[in-house]
């Protein structure tokens, strides 16, 4: 084990004893990046090593080494604003956008002593499940370079799985943290809606978007969540939740060893590919050897996908209306034409095909004559789903499902079949529609390809999810898995 691939919560202890070890750690990490990144392409922007080392050494000289994440290298999804570091959303539209401010999560990371090493690749404006709709290049799965790493936070997940970052931030609108976590054998948590500030997150679908932590073990996930969560007056949907030390709470829960009631979403397990089903069943055997399990059915899963895409596309069409090439987005250098023509030119050149399609569909479902038939119906379904799910939570502490019903597809396989791609989100969209937390835990490998198990709990029960994830981590032994990229 080199310093570069050591877990974050162990590194912080080591750095407390000798802060100058951070330089060696960063050098080792960048050596890996230099060797692996050309094949994986997890990053859109990577900060130079000397700049990153200088930042850390200046903090050490100032004696500013107390932060709980001091010295840890974090990869940040490229839709989270970073002052002075380009933030592209993997889109030509924002190719040269350098934010003049930090997102709240970035301010908090910096305060905690973390070092942002770069911005990671993603589906354009987070619209995709494979990281192939990036306007720049697709990211490859470190476990098998012919396969996708999932999406839309595929760059963050790939950076972790390849040992090119210790921690990572993603955003999750319909599964964009959990899907790539499952496809890369890493851990990913979508927090309760409102637990983590969205201030500085480039909006896709505001009622569904949530920033969350990604890592190679549960402890690191807990540590990162502690740093980024808590109320933010600059996000009006931010909950009045006090900052919590999730690592301490996880350890307390672990020592109490509560036996929990788990619902197994049998219809979602049965609806998955065989390789996924086999791994998930094995993980469930481990979970149910201690906890009390019962089979349940998630109501209307296919309809949840429909409702999710209606809401997401409708909100996207509104959020992305601001990109007109003047206030936001690329300048096309066209003069002497009508405003509509200039606007259309910028939007057509700046947005990729999938983005244009989704905002067009979103505007369609909101347009006169269709709003009630699509958008309002989807919102009614959202309430139905919430009531049914909370009905299950009256007798259950958590619900387990596969994270993804399929194995990581080959590049080009899913993106060419959008309906199949949308339906592959069947297990993950539920948590976003209802606003509850959900976590993806490595559950095994099928033909060398990672499989994830998802756990969902009622709002603000992140500690319960972390506890169950740790239970699986210890039972299955999937901890700090780093792919040897060859």
């Amino acid at each position: 084990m080199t310093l570069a691939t050591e877990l974050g919560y162990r590194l912080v202890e080591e750095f407390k004893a000798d802060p100058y070890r951070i330089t060696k750690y960063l050098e080792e990490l960048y050596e890996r990046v230099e060797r692996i990144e050309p094949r994986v392409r997890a990053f859109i922007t990577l900060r130079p090593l000397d700049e990153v080392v200088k930042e850390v050494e200046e903090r050490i000289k100032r004696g500013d080494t107390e932060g709980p994440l001091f010295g840890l290298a974090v990869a940040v999804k490229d839709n989270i604003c970073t002052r002075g570091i380009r933030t592209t959303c993997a889109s030509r539209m924002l190719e040269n956008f350098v934010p003049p401010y930090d997102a709240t999560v970035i301010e908090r990371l910096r305060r905690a002593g973390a070092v942002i090493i770069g911005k990671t690749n993603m589906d354009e404006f987070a619209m995709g499940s494979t990281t192939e709709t990036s306007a720049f290049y697709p990211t490859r799965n470190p476990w098998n370079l012919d396969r996708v790493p999932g999406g839309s936070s595929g760059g963050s997940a790939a950076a972790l799985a390849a040992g090119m970052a210790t921690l990572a931030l993603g955003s999750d609108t319909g599964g964009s943290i959990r899907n790539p976590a499952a496809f890369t054998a890493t851990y990913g948590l979508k927090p309760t809606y409102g637990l983590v500030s969205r201030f500085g997150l480039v909006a896709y679908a505001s009622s569904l978007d949530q920033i969350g932590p990604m890592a190679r073990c549960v402890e690191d996930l807990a540590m990162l969540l502690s740093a980024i969560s808590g109320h933010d007056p600059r996000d009006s949907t931010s909950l009045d939740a006090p900052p919590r030390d999730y690592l301490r709470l996880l350890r307390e829960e672990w020592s109490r060893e509560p036996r929990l009631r788990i619902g197994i979403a049998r219809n979602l397990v049965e609806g998955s590919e065989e390789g996924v089903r086999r791994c998930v069943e094995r993980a469930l055997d481990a979970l149910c050897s201690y906890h009390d399990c019962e089979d349940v059915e998630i109501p209307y899963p296919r309809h949840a996908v429909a409702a999710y895409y209606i809401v997401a596309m409708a909100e996207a069409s509104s959020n992305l209306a601001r990109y007109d090439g003047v206030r936001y987005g690329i300048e096309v250098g066209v003069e002497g034409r009508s405003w509509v023509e200039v606007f259309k030119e910028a939007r057509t050149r700046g947005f990729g095909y999938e983005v244009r399609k989704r905002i067009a569909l979103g505007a369609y479902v909101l347009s006169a004559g269709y709003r009630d038939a699509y958008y309002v119906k989807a919102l009614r379904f959202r309430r139905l789903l919430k009531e049914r799910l909370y009905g299950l939570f009256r007798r259950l502490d958590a619900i387990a499902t596969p994270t993804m019903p399929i194995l990581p597809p080959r590049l080009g396989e899913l993106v060419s079949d959008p309906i199949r791609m949308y339906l592959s989100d069947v297990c993950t969209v539920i948590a976003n529609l209802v606003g509850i937390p959900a976590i993806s835990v490595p559950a095994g490998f099928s033909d060398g390809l990672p499989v994830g198990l998802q756990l969902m709990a009622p709002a603000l029960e992140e500690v319960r999810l972390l506890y169950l994830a740790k239970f699986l981590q210890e039972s299955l032994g999937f901890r700090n898995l780093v792919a040897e990229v060859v």
Partner: protein
Amino acid sequence: MERDDIVEYLERLVLVEFQGAERDRVRSEVSKVLELFKTLDEVKDLDSYEPLFYVHDISGPTREDEPGEDIRLSYSDLEMNRRLERGFFKAPRTVVEE
């Protein structure tokens, strides 16, 4: 499909263009996606549920409606991203459509 040319209609709605082979592709995909959306009609008694716009029953505290000092933008911050001239953003010269 209710519209004669769905692609043109969508282009007008959001001011984008689909070009070349994209036009057939988007026509076909939009039709399939709308079919998926229509499956919500199969859910019984959906009209008895109120639309859910915001997922939580509780809402977060709101801040005082007073100007803060959250973001201090310098001229050079703005210059990084936009064409500026004498302190103003420069927009493309456009003509009014008749």
